[in-house]
């Protein structure tokens, strides 16, 4: 098209990519090919699709949200280093220096916990003292915590195979593991919006939710020794788990962000911290976008869950308590979006609703396992 315009017309994502972006994608592809060359005989068609699908997915994520490229490199580098340190012997987790103090899955998760708590403190300092530098530190701490969390999961994945070749599984299968996943997914989603809205003030609220989850992980670790790797029950031995669980936690992450911002919105509405927080319109938009992304992923996760259920339990919908509560959570946020989009509702009611929505979500996530019985009983405390 002739260029009669005195400004650069917006270009689609693919045309805006630099050679660094392509290099990053090539690295991902190389990694996937390496894994395929070594382990193809253990994979079925679905797992191969998940493997190469993840190349596309993470390439896109890195292109869309550039810092993810560095994060991915960090995760790969540290995880490979840790795996090298193991030399195929699980006992080295307690002997090799780097494993014992930094990179064995348990140490990495402890580092993640510490970093998240420090990040929370730094965000609050930045918010209350209007300290810009503290804010930058908080962001850096959060990124480091996300890195260590992912490394912890990756190394745990490897450790599970060292426990026994038939034991190995992707570490998203029990409460301990999914809580780690929840922390890092929520933090990563927050970091995206932090950049997008160019505001660090909301980190204080979001990181409180993450810290609560970290508190749970610590209690679960020290009181219940939940870090022990237990082999999977037959019902969980399915490639569906690899897609169903992470998708679900992106949903939960989105709903948690919305609730945290909802609290900030309500406080600002009462004049608390109002001068330190972003404008109400920004908070409102933040809340909407989090719920929107959460809702999309929660919908997909529920559908994936139904498809898995069809394969494992013989019916795509059994009105199992977990399924039913997922439906209730879905209806809740569907109503939230409906009122906002169709009826144009704005204001504190939606903020309250987002906060209450998180309580509902928490019940669907934890309460159902604790108080009701059903087919999801492997998530029990």
């Amino acid at each position, binding site marked *: 098209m002739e260029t009669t315009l005195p400004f650069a017309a917006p270009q689609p994502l693919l045309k805006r990519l630099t050679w660094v972006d392509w290099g990053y994608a090539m690295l991902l592809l190389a990694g996937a090919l390496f894994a395929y060359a070594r382990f193809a005989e253990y994979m079925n068609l679905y797992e191969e699709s998940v493997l190469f699908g993840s190349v596309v997915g993470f390439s896109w994520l890195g292109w869309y949200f550039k810092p993810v490229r560095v994060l991915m490199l960090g995760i790969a580098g540290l995880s490979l280093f840790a795996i090298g340190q193991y030399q195929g012997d699980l006992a080295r987790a307690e002997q090799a220096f780097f494993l014992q103090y930094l990179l064995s899955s348990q140490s990495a998760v402890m580092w993640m916990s510490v970093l998240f708590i420090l990040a929370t403190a730094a965000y609050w300092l930045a918010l209350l003292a209007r300290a810009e530098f503290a804010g930058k530190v908080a962001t850096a701490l959060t990124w480091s915590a996300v890195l260590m969390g992912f490394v912890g999961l990756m190394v745990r994945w490897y450790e599970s195979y060292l426990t026994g070749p038939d034991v190995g599984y992707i570490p998203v299968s029990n409460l301990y593991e999914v809580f780690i996943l929840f922390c890092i997914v929520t933090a990563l989603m927050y970091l995206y919006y932090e950049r997008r809205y160019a505001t660090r003030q909301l980190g204080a609220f979001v990181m409180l939710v993450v810290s609560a989850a970290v508190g749970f992980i610590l209690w679960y670790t020290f009181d219940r020794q939940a870090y022990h790797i237990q082999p999977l*029950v037959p019902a969980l031995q399915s490639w569906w788990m690899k897609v169903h669980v992470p998708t679900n936690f992106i949903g939960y992450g989105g709903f948690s962000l919305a609730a945290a911002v909802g609290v900030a919105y309500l406080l600002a509405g009462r004049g608390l911290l109002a001068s330190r927080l972003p404008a109400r319109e920004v908070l409102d938009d933040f809340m909407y976008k989090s719920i929107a992304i959460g809702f999309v992923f929660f919908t997909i996760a529920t559908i994936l869950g139904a*498809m898995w259920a069809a*394969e494992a339990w013989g019916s795509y919908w059994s*009105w199992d*308590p977990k399924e039913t509560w997922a439906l209730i959570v879905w209806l809740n946020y569907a109503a939230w979006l409906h009122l906002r989009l169709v009826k144009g509702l704005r204001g504190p009611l939606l903020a309250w609703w987002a906060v209450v929505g998180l309580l509902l979500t928490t019940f669907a996530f934890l309460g159902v396992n604790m108080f009701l019985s059903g087919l999801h009983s492997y998530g029990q405390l």
Partner: protein
Amino acid sequence: MATPVRLTTLKNPTSFAAKLYELLSSMRFAIALLTVLGIASIIGTVLKQNEPYANYVVQFGQFWFGLFEGLGLYDVYHSAWFLLILLFLVLSTSLCIYRNTPGMLRELRAYREHATETSLRSFAHRAEYVCADESAGVARRLQDFLVAHGFRYKVEQRAGGDVLLAAKAGSYQRLGYLLTHGAIVVICIGGLLDGNVPFKLQEGFGVKRVETRDLAAEEVPQDSRLSVANLSFRANLTLPEGAQGDAAFIRMRDGYLVQELPFTVRLKDFRIEHYATGQPKSFESDVEILDPDLPQPRQATIRVNHPLVHDGIVIYQSDFQDGGSLLELDVWPLFSGEGAPDRVRTRVFEDVIAGEGENVLRIEFEDFRFFNILTLDEGPGAQPRNVGPSLTFKVRDSQGQAREYLNYMQPLNLDGRAYFVSGMRETLQEDYRYLRIPADPENSIGDYMRLHAVLFDAAQLPEIARRLADKTTPETATPEVRARFEQSVRQLLGAFAKGGYVRVAEVIEQAVPEAERERAAEVYLKVVGNAAFEALIMSRERAGLPPPQPDGDTLEFLHDSLNSMSDLFFYGSPFFLQLADFGHRQASGFQLTRAPGKNLVYAGSVLLVMGIFAMLYLRERRIWLLVKPAARQVLFAMSASRKSPDFENEFARYRQQLQVLLEG
């Protein structure tokens, strides 16, 4: 929404039909239905669904049980009213789609090129420019501008040489509405197809009914059988190894239906594999499908997460149970002093009658488990382990009252010592209470039972007392003192054999003044302990075994034995069953489903996701650019279906870009 959706109006809006239509297609109605549905769903998760009716009676009492049954609360999701609400929801959503689709589609296509200048000037988001040049290129440049930002437009020539560019982008947002609501209808229809509406109708007309008697599949009468032609079902089939079946059971309310299958399933083998730690790793059934349409039987292995599809019916590994294992049992009498067991051979699911007349007992063998993974140790690092086979049985008296027992075959290690463990409970709602019988140094129950036989045999008591007196009374004691001692030992052991420590305590209470009871109890317990040691020596002599070592282990054994014997009075059974040998036979439980609505549900799910994406991530925006060459003016107006900060930013950016473009 900024642009209201036009409603299709009926000719006579006051008629009943019109009002009904108005109500059914309104969002209020849909929301009300969804709310009721939500609450009903919550009830269904709090109240355990599809339990045996007897459990509900116990839980709620007769009155509430009846009421809840009437409301269909034991199977909320298949109750008539729940299905009716779903049906209304489908109807309401369909009407809503029907009502709004024409308007939506019109909006989707329309460019609104007829907007007047006056109306454009009333827009909140507008700007006016005076062009730097008067060349005819202005309109051309504006068109480039719109294309570059992804807008599609329509050009309209107006009177006086004015040109209106009416543009839009993201119009498919409106499709999102149609897709999501259409998806809900499609999913619900799929779900209803796979529900049991056809049966409900047949039951309503009295053609079919739920069978509540305990019958074999082939004996079930025709009106409780569903034919092979049944469109959708979800049924269970349990087969012992080596058995076959061509009919499955559908559990319903307090009974069941029989679903006939177009083929026969034969179970060849059922396997449980275990991890090194003892937890189950896989449940697998080797089956043979005998289908008249197949020249040869089809061989397959069904695993959890790996179902078999045959003839449109999906067969899943659902559970497993005992298939009638062979049992060899030692029956130890607990209240007659024989000290030797009877050997009984039976099978799981068979009954054995013991005793006669008033005291007749029916032993119902219910389950045998080959593996039991338990975490017996406490504290950190406690790992679950396999503790070996167990047997579950009920002991029912002549009144029909039953106690349930759970016996482990091998001794369990508890607190560092080995015990034969038997759990007992009087109702299903209770937890088991456990009787611990200490194992002897040979890891058998023999010492305990022999000791029990001696201690509980009144004829043996004088001998025990005599032996104890030999050892404990000083040689200088007078015969009267010695006789009194023996007398009290006999009395004490007699009391213990009649009611354990409880009875001993009663004896103390009667004979000793309150102030001295504590000291007396200590002495009495010591005497019972010492007497038990003598009894143990005697019991081993009688069996031709060497005397026990008088060490700490034996002391512990005696201590545990006496506690256990005292507990026998609460055990509720006059015998102890010890599993001696078994022949394991398993049964595999399959679930068979035919769900033609599944694909509809999946298709609806795809529509739903597409619709949600369109609704949330497409933003419908419109731009009008009115070019007035005569006045060298351009009027810019913009609107969006939803106001958002993104839209404000976009408008600000365009306004600025247009200024550069037009005013230079």
